[in-house]
């Protein structure tokens, strides 16, 4: 196969755009102390201006809220929460969903049937509701939010991985591996997993896009961090009280951050899927 | 003449450059006449056939020549006129998998009746359904089948219904693009019998596209052999099969296992058809031709005509 520039391949532009957006927000999270002009809860306006949100100005390009907090700085700081929750939940969901999908798909049998039924049922339930139910029991924290998201996205990884394993099992190569008497764990790790890896990558992109939105929903419900800690969804929730008096900047910018970050992952997943010649994965 | 194609050139735009799928082909079909276009895949025979009702994909353009049906040059017509005057009305089409052209979600009668109504051949739904029933009877399907869904029909019935849909508007010409490729010999021969019967009943002209020269010889009045977008040879079916003029036709015949039921060992033509983005110079068949000389490489072959109306394009026509 000829090596082609990534941009020239189908989906290449989407992957590049998606990765750029993701890296931008990850860099924002890592470098927040350097990049953020103000602290997340620093009163950054003169005393006489506090009490009312102030519109964007040269010193505060995204404006300030009624407490005098700088909206841009809160978005920069808030990226830390989102990036942590989404990264942690992706690792957890993969750690559970991928092995289960591999084993369940490879061995089949009654365990596979029951597991599939359970996973399908959870998958069919609205993710945000399930996450809310779990998070409301566990209480607001980054770790708990990640666990709530894990419950939602394990079935996504499981289903995709299992489906791919079933495809691979139907290949003639498998026959020869079995006749060669190779142990199952060897076949799974050396032959199936490498072929499932691209699928996992695609699912990672698409599930993470969804996870960002679910995280924002949890945050909107006050189930990730407690105000005044900075988190995009929570800022949006508190910002909406000021929208009717015209303070659009309190909601526009946090929402834009949520949607653009999610779009980054969506583009990555979609682009990867196209590279692998799949039109639809969901 | 029902159909008169003259100097037709069709070009496809492709990612790796343009290609001429049909390059200067002329062909005519008279009323009630059956002409078969024969060639390997990639010879341009399907492109030629589908250009008549102007059903080519969007990346194909007719860059030269004319196609006259009943005196109307369809290369000059716009989409709307093609739809109203030509498709279904002057030319009916039977595709490669005829049964697959039926809409699985609608009763077959409704599908045929719809075409009758949009072309103004029936003014009420009842009349249209009655005519649709007539069309079904013409192809040997009971008229009650108008109210069946395609999935309720057998495979053979679906093919017949698709043919009924193609002839329901009583076109002058039926274009059939390898309608029986996927079928076994018995079904194939039944479908061919049906086309023959329709030709007699309706005074229909038929243009059959096939890669099977034995089938063409058995059924058609005349055969046109295409190679790499050009006409190699054309003439009365019997004459062509008994004494081909073009070495390519000879090759096709030798590659056929059972001409007139006589079993023999097929001898395939060596080599493969050329890439039409970069066709060979001179006669396009020369790289595979056993008789090729330097002349064939350099110049376009001349037309060889016989009194019977046969023609071939070759420097070294075979003699009987």
């Amino acid at each position, binding site marked *: 196969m000829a090596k082609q520039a990534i941009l020239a391949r189908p989906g290449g532009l989407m992957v590049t755009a998606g990765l750029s957006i993701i890296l931008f927000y990850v860099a924002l999270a890592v470098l927040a102390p350097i990049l953020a002009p103000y602290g997340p809860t620093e009163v950054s306006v003169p005393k006489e201006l506090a009490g009312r949100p102030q519109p964007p100005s040269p010193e505060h390009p995204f404006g300030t809220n009624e407490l005098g907090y700088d909206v841009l700085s809160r978005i920069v700081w808030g990226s830390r929460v989102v990036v942590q929750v989404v990264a942690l939940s992706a690792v957890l969901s993969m750690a559970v969903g991928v092995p289960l999908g591999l084993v369940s798909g490879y061995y089949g049998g009654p365990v596979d049937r029951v597991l599939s*039924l*359970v996973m*399908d*049922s959870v998958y*069919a*339930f*609205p*993710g*945000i*509701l*399930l996450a*809310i*139910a*779990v998070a*409301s*029991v*566990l209480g607001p924290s980054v770790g708990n939010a990640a666990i709530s998201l894990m419950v939602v996205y394990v079935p996504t990884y499981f289903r995709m991985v299992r489906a791919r394993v079933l495809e691979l099992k139907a290949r003639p190569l498998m026959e020869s591996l079995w006749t060669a008497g190779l142990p199952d764990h060897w076949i799974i790790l050396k032959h199936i997993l490498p072929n499932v890896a691209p699928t996992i990558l695609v699912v990672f992109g698409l599930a993470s*896009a*969804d996870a960002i*939105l679910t995280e924002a*929903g949890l945050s*909107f*419900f*006050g*189930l990730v961090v407690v105000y005044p800690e900075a988190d995009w969804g929570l800022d*949006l*929730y508190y910002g909406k009280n000021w*929208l*009717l008096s*015209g303070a659009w900047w309190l*909601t*526009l910018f*946090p*929402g834009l951050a*949520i*949607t653009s970050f*999610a*779009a980054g992952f*969506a583009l990555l997943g*979609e682009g990867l899927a196209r590279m692998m010649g799949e039109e*639809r994965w969901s | 003449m029902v159909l008169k194609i003259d100097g037709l050139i069709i070009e496809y735009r492709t990612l790796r450059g343009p290609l001429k799928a049909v390059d200067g082909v002329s062909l005519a079909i008279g009323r009630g006449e059956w002409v078969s276009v024969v060639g390997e895949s990639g010879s341009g025979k399907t492109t030629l056939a589908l250009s008549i009702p102007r*059903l080519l994909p969007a990346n194909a353009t007719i860059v030269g020549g004319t196609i006259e049906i009943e005196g109307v040059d369809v290369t000059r017509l716009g989409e709307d006129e*093609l*739809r109203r005057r*030509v*498709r*279904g*009305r002057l030319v009916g089409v039977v*595709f490669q998998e005829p049964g*697959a*052209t*039926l*809409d*699985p*979600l609608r009763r077959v009668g409704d599908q045929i009746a*719809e*075409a009758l109504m949009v*072309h103004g051949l029936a003014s009420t739904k009842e009349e249209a359904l009655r005519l649709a029933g007539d069309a079904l009877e013409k192809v040997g399907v009971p008229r009650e089948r108008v109210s069946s869904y395609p999935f309720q029909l057998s495979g053979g019935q679906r093919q017949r219904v698709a043919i009924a849909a*193609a002839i329901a*508007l009583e076109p002058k010409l039926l274009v059939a693009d390898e309608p029986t490729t996927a079928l076994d010999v018995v079904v194939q021969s039944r479908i061919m019998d049906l086309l023959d019967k329709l030709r007699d009943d309706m005074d229909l002209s038929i243009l059959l596209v096939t890669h099977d020269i034995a089938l063409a010889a058995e059924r058609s009045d005349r055969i046109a052999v295409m190679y790499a977008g050009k006409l190699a040879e054309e003439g009365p079916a019997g004459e062509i099969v008994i004494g081909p003029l073009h070495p390519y036709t000879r090759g096709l015949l030798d590659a056929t296992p059972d001409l007139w039921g006589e079993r023999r060992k097929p001898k395939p033509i060596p080599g493969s058809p050329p890439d039409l983005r970069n066709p060979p110079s001179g006669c396009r068949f020369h790289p595979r031709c056993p008789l090729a000389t330097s002349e064939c490489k350099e110049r376009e072959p001349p037309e060889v005509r016989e009194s019977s109306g046969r023609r071939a394009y070759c420097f070294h026509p075979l003699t009987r």
Partner: protein
Amino acid sequence: MGSLARYIALRAALIVPSVLILYTIVFVVLRVIPGDPVLAVLGTKSVPPEELERIRERLGLDKPLYQQYIEYLMGVLRLDFGESMVYTGRPVWNDIADRFPATLELAVFGFLASVVLGLASGVAAVKGRGPIRALANFYAVTGYTLFIPWIGLILIYVFAVNPILPFRLPVGGRISPEVGLREVTGLYIVDSIITGNIPALIDVLAHLVLPSVTLGIVLGSAYARLVRSHLREVLASEIVAGYRARGIPEILLLRHALRNTMVPIVTYMGLQFAILLGGAVLTETTFSWPGLGTLLLERIELRDYTAIQGVVIFFAFMIGLVSLVVDVIYALLDPRIRY
């Protein structure tokens, strides 16, 4: 019709295990994980132990878990979702029954908006030209990443705070307080029609516009994607080639192609309904819509576990019911399905 009834019964039987599994998961999450819910809610206050014991007994939390599991399930089948842990003596079902019509009305209109938007942009992504086509394609790929409250708030700003239309659209609640409406079904559209109350009907519809469009924009992109890919497939199929060869006008052709496209899409609507309910929860909080979503948010703040459990399980049953309805619609739409 007898065979249709049998078909429905068969589909229903297949949905039961799914709903039971969800019930079990929710039960485990909300009853087992918190340990003692009563303690979790009231533990921080200084409530005497005998008082806690009394509450446990009243809520049935003193019984063994398996017994709670079965009794709660039996209750749900009789529409008994237990009692609120916060509002003493108040059945959870009362709140659900009170709020559900609002959510249903929003879900139905949001669904309609999403289908209209999704179909239109899916067709535009295939048949449109220039910038419209590009926009439709972009929407089809990334539209679902729009955060619902964000889109809702943008619409509020554009149509109510700083309206681009000559009037302001309502942004909160289901009906203006000054408009009187006699409640019959709780579905305000239906109520205003059956009581012949035209001003109320207009007011209720006006209240529905922004929340439904919000849901429609976000959820429509999934349909746009599906319509786009299936329509492309159908347009390239022999079916359409056959229609075209018969001289059928493009507009009819597109109609037949769309009908063929709808078959796989209706299947998807069952799954989409679940996402719709999830989206409705966020939409309700954005538009102060007095439905199950706002009920959920209120009770989360009060840590009213029995209410949360009731709402979530109610959703599970609703989703099961809708997927059954979708199966039946699918069977009626596609003559190939024999029931």
